[in-house]
């Protein structure tokens, strides 16, 4: 006679074996096909080389499609931003190596100078926003005036009508001055860099009008979205020779 304990053991063994059989029977197809593919399939160098090349072609085709989509996106964005780069415009990458530790009259030194083609008055941008202007140039390095420096001044144009004004620093921020109060300027209008004529520089957006205040016969405008120049490490010098 089987004891109760033995009956339990047999019952447990039965359940376990049933589970294992069910598991293998469900996956037998996988194990079998894997075994067949590994050991009994027909293989030749010609076939494997052909399939490898086919795979590579597929990969390259997908990469080309991806790059084509980037090119299209770039063209579309340029159209939207009305980005017309003149032939004279050149971009030069530079590193901000020194920033003066004073809080208000802060300036910076970049590692590009006369020998790299930098000239006084060139503008410096980072992430598409204005950082400052080249104030003085030496052989190997140049001094940058940040936008909030009281010595900083640059011509800008505002909105769709391209109304000219002067962006000037005052030690803590920069604001647009010398726009007569008969001009229609609204909050949110785009502010773009200009030289004496809009064609001289590419229309780089430096911010949007945050507030407009009447001051005598002129408008005083604050800018929104100016970049904090003391945080940046790399910048681009825009030359327009």
């Amino acid at each position: 006679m089987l004891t109760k304990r033995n009956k339990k053991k047999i019952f447990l063994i039965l359940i376990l074996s049933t589970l294992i059989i069910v598991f293998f029977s469900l996956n037998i197809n996988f194990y079998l096909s894997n075994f067949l593919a590994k050991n009994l399939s027909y293989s030749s160098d010609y076939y494997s080389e052909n399939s490898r090349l086919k795979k590579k072609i597929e990969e390259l085709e997908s990469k080309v499609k991806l790059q084509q989509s980037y090119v299209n996106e770039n063209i579309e964005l340029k159209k939207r931003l009305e980005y017309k780069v003149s032939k004279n415009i050149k971009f030069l990458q530079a590193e901000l190596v020194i920033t003066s530790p004073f809080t208000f009259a802060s300036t910076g030194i970049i590692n590009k100078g006369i020998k790299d083609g930098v000239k006084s008055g060139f503008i410096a941008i980072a992430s598409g926003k204005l950082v400052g202007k080249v104030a003085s140039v030496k052989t190997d390095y140049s001094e940058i005036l940040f936008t909030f420096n009281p010595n900083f001044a640059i011509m800008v144009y505002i909105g769709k009508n391209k109304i000219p004004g002067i962006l000037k620093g005052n030690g803590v921020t920069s604001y647009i001055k010398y726009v007569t109060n008969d001009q229609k300027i609204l909050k949110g209008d785009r502010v773009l860099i200009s030289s004496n004529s809009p064609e001289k520089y590419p229309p780089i957006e430096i911010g949007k009008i945050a507030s407009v205040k009447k001051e005598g016969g002129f408008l005083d405008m604050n800018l929104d979205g100016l970049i904090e120049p003391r945080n940046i490490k790399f910048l681009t010098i825009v030359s327009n020779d």
Partner: protein
Amino acid sequence: MIKNNIFLSALGLLALLILPIYPNSGTLDFGGNVDASIVYLLILFLTGISRSKIFLGIIILLFYYSMTGTYGYLELCIKFVSFYFFIFFIQKFFWENLRNDSLLILIFLILFYSVTFIVYSLIFSIGLMDYLSFVCLPFIYNLFVSLILLIIIKYNSWPKVKDQVYQF
């Protein structure tokens, strides 16, 4: 016996002076919000005033001034005036505990930024809100960095153990 190495001290001082001018150098430049000259001078004067320290303070200010633009002299003059009052306050009153020292730093920073606002609003007619938004972060950073350095330097020091002479 441990001797003070003047060469190493001078080298350390030079490194402390020069390193904050490099952006992202990881010293005192918290995104350009810390004015190294203010922090150094606060620590220098709060740990005791002597002629050599005042001379060193002037050198620090002139060194940093040499790296600013044309209008840097405005800030330099304001710093000279503010630190003159700061030294006057330290000498006239008793400040020898952390709470009073913290209060003194706070008073100095408020004085410095208030005088700067008056001068800049007179010369460049800046708005109060523009000024506050520009100064808010530097004020906080200068205050806390000065306080942290003060605690480390003045209120936490190496245990002063006299050199022992053993006789065998």
